[in-house]
């Protein structure tokens, strides 16, 4: 390394030092301390006592943890594809060159500006079993179906009934797809025009162009949104926490891993146990992100790179 290289390195390090410092203190240190405390009996106020893998062993036999994990997996399994379908469909529609498209884009983005807590309170009432707008809309439809088919379908008690509670949260999540829509829209506008023109000459219709041009070209954007959705779904916390008033929902149907982690850390004084939950969550997200990367390698198009 020449003297000039060394000087460049020093200057480079100096310029990225604010980020490095933040990364070390706010990411690396919490991660390492979390790993350390996950091996301890630690209540924050008492000194941490090393207990080996006890916390992890207890976790594997903790029925509530498994319930929280299964709720989180269920949520992720439906919220991610549904969110992607809705946001991608909206982005494709908003990409049409129609009069007032700017207004439509604003209208569909606006709900994602609503803070999480307001969103949760708003949807708590929308999903209210007796007075909610959703059920007011559903009741006449169900009544018509019952009349025609002789069934006895009833509008669900969304947040009070364990069978429907998670669906309520999944639908609530769709309210905030605006951010993903904007990213998809940006991707769609970057698709080279000449590809569409060539397809037009070949007689391709809208679906052909969407499937064979738009989606492959924006595949890196789809990949990015999938990974972000995956991380977000596994960290779901604020909306169910507010909707259940800090509780677990009916029959623990709205207890997610992040909520259980929070309860152990701050309600039950089991910081060591909470750190172990955090490490498991970290490993799950890491593994799924790795799997998503590997699975999508052959399907993501980076302009020939």
């Amino acid at each position, binding site marked *: 390394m020449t003297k000039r290289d060394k000087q460049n390195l020093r200057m480079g390090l100096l310029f990225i030092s604010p980020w490095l410092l933040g990364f070390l203190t706010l990411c690396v240190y919490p991660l390492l301390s979390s790993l350390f405390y996950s091996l301890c009996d630690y209540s*924050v106020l008492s000194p941490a*006592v090393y207990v080996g893998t006890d916390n992890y062993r*207890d976790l594997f036999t903790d029925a509530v943890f498994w319930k929280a994990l299964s709720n989180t997996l269920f949520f992720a399994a439906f919220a991610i594809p549904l969110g992607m379908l809705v946001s991608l469909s909206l982005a494709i529609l908003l990409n049409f060159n129609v009069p007032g498209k700017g207004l439509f884009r604003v209208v569909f983005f606006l709900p994602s500006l609503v803070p999480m807590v307001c969103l949760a309170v708003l949807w708590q009432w929308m999903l*209210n079993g007796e007075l909610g707008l959703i059920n007011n809309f559903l009741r006449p439809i169900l009544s018509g179906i019952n009349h025609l088919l002789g069934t006895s379908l009833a509008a669900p008690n969304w947040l009070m009934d*364990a069978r429907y509670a998670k669906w309520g949260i999944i639908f609530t999540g769709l309210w905030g797809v605006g951010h993903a829509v904007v990213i998809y829209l940006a991707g769609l506008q970057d698709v080279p025009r000449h590809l569409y023109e060539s397809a037009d000459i070949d007689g391709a219709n809208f679906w052909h162009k969407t499937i064979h041009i738009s989606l492959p070209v924006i595949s890196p954007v789809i990949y990015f949104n999938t990974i972000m959705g995956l991380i977000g779904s596994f960290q779901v916390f604020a909306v169910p926490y507010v909707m259940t008033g800090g509780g*677990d*929902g*009916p029959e623990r149907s709205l207890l997610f891993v992040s909520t259980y982690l929070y309860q152990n850390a701050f309600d039950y004084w089991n910081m060591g146990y909470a750190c172990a939950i955090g490490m498991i969550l970290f490993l799950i997200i890491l593994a799924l992100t790795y799997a998503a990367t590997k699975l999508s390698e052959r399907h993501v198009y980076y302009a020939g790179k």
Partner: protein
Amino acid sequence: MKTAVRLFFHLKRFSLLALVCALGFAGCKEKPGANAPVVIKYWEKWTGFESDAMQVIVNDFNASQNRIFVDYCTVSQIDRKLMLATAGGVPPDVAGVWSENIPVYAENNALTPLDKRAAGAGITREKYTDIFWKICSHRDHLWALPTTPTSIALIWNKKLFRAAGLDPERPPKSIAELDEYNRKLVKYRPDGSLEAMGFIPGEPNWFDSMWGCWFGGKLWDGEKTITADAPEVLAAYQWVESYPKRYGSSQLLAFRDGFGNFASPQNAFFTGRVAMVLQGVWIHNFIKNYAPPDFEWGAAPFPTADPANLPNVTIAGCDVLVIPAGARHPKEAFEFIAYVNSQKVMEKLCMGQRKFTPLRDCSPGFLANHPNPYIKVFADLAKSPNATALPRLTTWTQYSNDLVNAVTRIQSGNTSATEALHDVSQRQQQVLDRSLARWKRVSPKLTDEWTNQ
């Protein structure tokens, strides 16, 4: 390696301090001045008129002498912030927490024992209603002194009683009678859905973990065994189970889903959708603020399974003042706590918050001039031999959460009370065993420290 470990713990302390600064200090300011009196920081959870009542007491104390200045600050989620502040080494000098926080704070060495200071100031057990002194003690040490106490009772809507042909001045005394009254008060809409009920266990769900008390049950043996599936507790939850069985699980869920927030005019009790509720001494304030002006109500001991042998059952609790471990001015902090616990000051505070006094002695005008017409019912319930506190367990938050979840399982109609309580008992026994193992490990050192403080 040693340096790395030291750096790790420095960083830990720094991050906790930063968190505490971010969470708790906004809005608190210290009184300036070179020859200023000792400033003690006092964190309290109250807001609104309850906070105003304590502000008057703080102002009186600050005006009564010039050695100590109490810097009073309302802090939300005080139990969590106090934990972080104490761990970060910057706790307030006095904190107002809930009595159920004491066991977990004490066993984690987060509080200063008050035994010697209380004895020195002539503050003894005899001055307090039994239950409140017990609540402030844990593991044979005194950790707190009370501020405002509570007890809970049956509250009923007299107009609805009258409309259903019931005597509005005669509340039910037994659980069987409560169910009978409920049947007379139930109303259905033309479509068959529930419009109103007399009583519904779990509205609100604040006491879902304690139904066993009114059936003579206990949730643990006081030492090392969880008894969530004891016959008396089971009988209580089978009674809870009888409601969805009688009215239909979905029907009841839909009915409850239509209730508004507790602190609002849409409260199911204030709108007449539920005629009887289990509520505390604070209900008077909510009725005043949110119920219709012509609302007629009464308060009496909540019915029990066996009123002849098990009368006047209540759950008593209180807000308490503690000195966190590591407080900078414990002597001055205790002086303020002792001031609050003098009879005249305590009555002023409790009157300001419309509650009764935790002290045995009560001036003649206190109950007579009290704005809550049923204050004596609540005060007498707290003195009853059947008054009980929330279990003095460090694992109570988890235990209570499990019991509330058991009630949701029972109410769904998918799980029997027997199965739900069996699950709670098994799980909580493991949790308690872990907690006791932790206590066994730290107790020799801690008890020595506490005795010498």
